C-alpha cells in the first residue's frame, strides 16, 4: 500500500518535472556593452544606432518560436571586461558574450572560451563567407574562438560647412584633408581664421581615443609601440606622432580637456571642423545632421588621412564568444547559444547600418550595403586598418598609454618623461 503510494507520487513528480521541461524555454544569458535601448522591440529594420540595432536583433531571436529566451545583462561599457572576468571567476559566465579581437588572446589562451571550429558548419554558418581579416581576428593558435560581427576603425568625421568657409573643400564636394603634419597645422590655422572654431576635436581625456590616434600616426611611420617582448614606446616615431597632436593643442586649434561626450557635443554643435571617432557613430551623426535643431548639417565621413608614409588607422573587431564549460555541462544551452550566434551573423547587414564595416563577403558585395549613407566616403578604410600585436595584456597596455599621453597634454609632463615611463611600464607588462 505504502509502496504503491510512493510509486504514484514519484510518477506524478516525474511527469510534472518532464512536463515543465517540455513547456519551458531554454533560457540563455547574454552579455554585451554598447549601451541600453529600452524600446528596441523586435523590428530590426527600423532600429537606429548601435544599442537599438543589436538589441532588436537579440529581441527578435528571443521572440521567435524557437524555444529559446535570451536574457540580456546590463550593457555599460566602462567596466565591461572586469564584469565578464569576475563572472568567469565566479563560475557564472553568461552563455553568450561580446568580445573584441584585441581581447581574444587573453580569454582564448587560458581556454575559457569555446573552440567553435568544428561546430560552425552544423548551425549553417559559412566560414568561407567571412573576410580574411575577420577570420584572422577570431583565430587563436589556428582555432576559431568566436563569431565576428564587424570591423571598426577610427574615422575623420567632417563638418563640410566649416571646412568650406576655410576654402578646404574640393569642387566635387569632398574635403581637402592634410597629407603631412605641417599641412594639418596650416589647415587648422585656416579654419581658425575663417570660422574661429577648433580644427579638431576628440576624446583626449577619457577613453583611449587619443591613444588610437597616436598609434595610427606611429603605424603611418612604420613604427610600433611594442614587439613580441620589447616595448618600443620611447622612439622617434612615437615622439613625432605625439608632437603632431600637441602642436595642435599648443596653437589652440584643439582642446585636450574634452571627454567623449563633450567632444561629440562640440562637433554636433559646429564648434569643431573634424571629430576623430569610430565607425560606430556614422548613422547617429547622419541622423543628427538631418535634425534642424543640430548645428552640424553638412556631414561627411573620411578615411583617416595619411600624414606620413603608409596609410594606417586603428581598428578592432566586435565578436561573440561562448564559455568553454557550456558545451560540456549543458549541451542544450550550447546549441541555443550557437543558434543565436548564427542569427546575429545572418543579420550582419543591419549591424553594418551603424557605420561598422561588415565581415561577410556577401554583404560587402551587396548593393544594400554599398548604398548605406556615407559608405562610399570611407570605403578605403577597410584596406588601411591596423592594431597592436595580439597580447594578453592589451587592457593594461592601453591604460598605460592613455595615462601617459594624457599626462602630456593635460598636465604638461614632458614628452621624454612620459614616453620613458610608458616604455618601462609596458616592458614590465610584457615581461
Amino acid at each position, binding site marked *: 500500500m505504502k509502496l504503491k503510494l510512493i510509486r504514484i507520487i514519484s510518477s506524478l513528480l516525474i511527469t510534472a518535472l518532464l512536463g515543465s521541461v517540455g513547456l519551458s524555454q531554454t533560457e540563455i544569458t547574454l552579455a554585451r556593452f554598447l549601451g541600453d535601448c529600452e524600446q528596441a522591440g523586435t523590428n530590426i529594420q527600423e532600429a537606429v544606432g548601435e544599442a537599438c540595432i543589436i538589441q532588436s536583433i537579440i529581441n527578435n531571436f528571443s521572440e521567435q518560436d524557437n524555444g529559446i529566451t535570451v536574457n540580456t545583462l546590463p550593457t555599460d561599457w566602462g567596466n565591461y571586461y572586469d564584469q565578464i572576468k569576475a563572472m568567469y571567476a565566479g563560475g557564472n559566465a553568461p552563455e553568450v558574450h561580446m568580445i573584441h579581437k584585441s581581447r581574444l588572446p587573453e580569454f582564448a589562451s587560458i581556454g575559457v572560451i569555446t573552440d567553435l571550429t568544428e561546430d560552425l558548419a552544423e548551425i549553417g554558418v559559412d566560414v568561407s563567407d567571412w573576410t580574411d581579416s575577420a577570420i584572422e581576428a577570431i583565430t587563436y593558435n589556428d582555432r576559431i574562438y568566436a563569431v565576428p560581427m564587424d570591423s571598426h576603425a577610427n574615422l575623420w568625421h567632417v563638418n563640410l560647412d566649416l571646412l568650406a568657409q576655410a576654402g578646404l573643400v574640393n569642387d566635387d564636394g569632398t574635403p581637402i584633408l592634410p597629407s603631412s603634419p605641417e599641412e594639418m597645422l596650416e589647415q587648422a590655422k585656416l579654419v581658425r581664421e575663417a570660422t574661429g572654431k577648433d580644427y579638431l576635436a576628440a576624446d583626449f581625456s577619457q577613453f583611449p581615443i587619443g591613444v588610437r590616434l597616436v598609434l595610427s600616426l606611429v603605424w603611418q611611420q612604420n613604427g610600433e609601440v611594442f614587439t613580441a617582448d620589447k616595448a618600443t614606446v620611447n622612439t622617434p616615431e612615437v615622439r613625432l606622432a605625439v608632437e603632431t597632436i600637441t602642436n595642435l593643442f599648443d596653437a589652440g586649434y584643439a582642446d585636450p580637456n574634452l571627454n567623449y561626450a563633450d567632444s561629440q557635443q562640440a562637433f554636433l554643435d559646429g564648434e569643431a571642423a573634424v571629430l576623430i571617432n569610430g565607425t560606430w557613430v556614422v548613422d547617429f551623426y547622419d541622423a543628427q545632421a538631418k535634425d534642424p535643431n543640430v548645428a552640424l548639417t553638412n556631414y561627411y565621413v573620411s578615411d583617416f588621412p595619411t600624414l606620413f608614409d603608409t596609410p594606417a588607422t586603428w581598428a578592432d573587431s566586435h565578436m561573440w564568444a561562448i564559455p568553454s564549460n557550456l558545451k560540456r555541462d549543458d549541451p542544450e544551452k550550447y546549441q541555443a547559444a550557437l543558434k543565436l550566434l548564427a542569427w546575429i551573423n545572418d543579420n550582419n547587414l543591419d549591424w553594418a547600418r551603424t557605420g561598422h564595416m561588415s565581415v561577410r563577403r556577401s554583404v560587402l558585395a551587396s548593393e544594400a550595403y554599398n548604398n548605406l549613407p556615407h559608405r562610399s566616403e570611407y570605403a578605403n578604410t577597410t584596406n588601411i586598418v591596423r592594431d597592436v600585436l595580439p597580447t594578453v595584456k592589451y587592457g*593594461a597596455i592601453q591604460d598605460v598609454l592613455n595615462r601617459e599621453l594624457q599626462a602630456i597634454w593635460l598636465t604638461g609632463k614632458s614628452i621624454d618623461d612620459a614616453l620613458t615611463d610608458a616604455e618601462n611600464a609596458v616592458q614590465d607588462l610584457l615581461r
Partner: protein
Amino acid sequence: MQSQSTQSNRSSHFSSQSWRQNLWLKNRDSFEGYLFIAPFLFVYIIFLIYPFFKGIWISLHEWNLLAVAFNPDAKEFIGLQNYRDMLWGRGMTWGLDNLLGWRLLGLAMLAPIWWSVQRGALRSKAAIWLSLSIVLLFGVILGIHPGDDGRWYDRRFWSIVWNTLAFVLLTVPLVTSIGLGLAIALNRQSPIMALFRTIFFLSQVLSVTVVTLIWQMIFSPSQGIISNLLQVFGLEPITWITNERLAMPAIVIATVWWSMGFAMVVFLAGLQEIPTERYEAARLDGAGPWSLLRHITLPGIRRTTTLVVILQIILHFQVFGQSHLITRGGPNDSTQVLVRYIYQTAFRDSELGYASGLAVLLFVIMLIFSVIQLRLNREEGV
C-alpha cells in the same frame, strides 16, 4: 558548637553543590550566549574572517583570476614575493636628502608632542612610543629610495599610497569640522531646523554612482553649473577633472558633500547628550560662545568625535567610486587611489595575488591610523 560544625559542614557541602550547579548554570549561560551570537558569528566568520585569511593566502601566490577559476592548479606559491614587488625596488639606497621637506615636517611633529607632555596632556610613555615611531618613519624609512640606476619594482605604488593618504587627510578633517559646524548650527528645536537637517542629510542617502554623476555635471567645463556661473562674470571655465592640481580637490569636494550628512547626524546625537544645565551654569559664570564651544561642547562630544573620525578614516581609505567614476584615476595618476589600483590589478590585469597583497597592505595602513587615533584620544581622556 556541634551544630555549628554541622552547619559549616553542610554549608560547605551545600556550597560545593551550588558551585557545581553554578558551573552548570554558567555553562548553560555561556552556551545560551553562544547560541545567541551564533548567527552573527556564522556570518562574521564566513564573510569576514575566512575571506580575510583567504586574501592573505592568495597574496602569497602568483594567482591569475581567469586561469585559476578555469583550473584550480594554475596558481603558484611564491612566498612574500608580491610584497617585495610592492614595497621594494632594485638598487635601493638611503639618502639624507630624500623627501627632505616632508621628513623635516614629520620630525617637526615631535615639538607639539613634547609640548603636550610638558602641559601634562600626554603621558610620557605614550610620547616616547610616538616619538620613536616618528623618528623611525621620517628619520629613517623615508630616506630609503632607489639609487641612480635603481627603481622601485612597482613605480606607481608609493605615489598611489600618497594619493590615498592625501585624500584621507583632506577629507576626514573637512567632513568632521563641517559636520560638527552644521550640527551645532542646526541643534535647535524648530521646524525650519528640522527641514535643514533633512536637506543636509539627503546627500548621504544617494549611492556613489548618483553622487559622481551629479558632480560630473557640476564640474563639466562645457555644461557645468560652475563654468556657467563663471561665464556670467566673463571668466574662463575651470577644467576641474582634467587639471592635475584640481582633480583631487574635485573628488574631495564631492566626497565632503556626500558624507558630511552622516557626521552631522552623529554629532547631533552627541550634542543632545550634553546636559543643558552645564551651558546655563557656564553662561552664569560669564562664558561667551567661544568658551562654551571650547570648554563645554567639544569635551562633551569627545567620544562622538573619535567615533566620527575613525569611521571616516576607515571609510575614506577605501575610496573608489569617486576616483573611478569622476576622474578615472587621472590625470597623470593624480587621483589614482589604492582600492582602484587593487581593482584594476585584480580584474583588468587578472593578477589576484598581487591585488590581495595590496589589499592586505591597505588593511595594515587603516589599522595603524585607527590605532593612533584611538590611542591619542584615550590619552587625552586621562
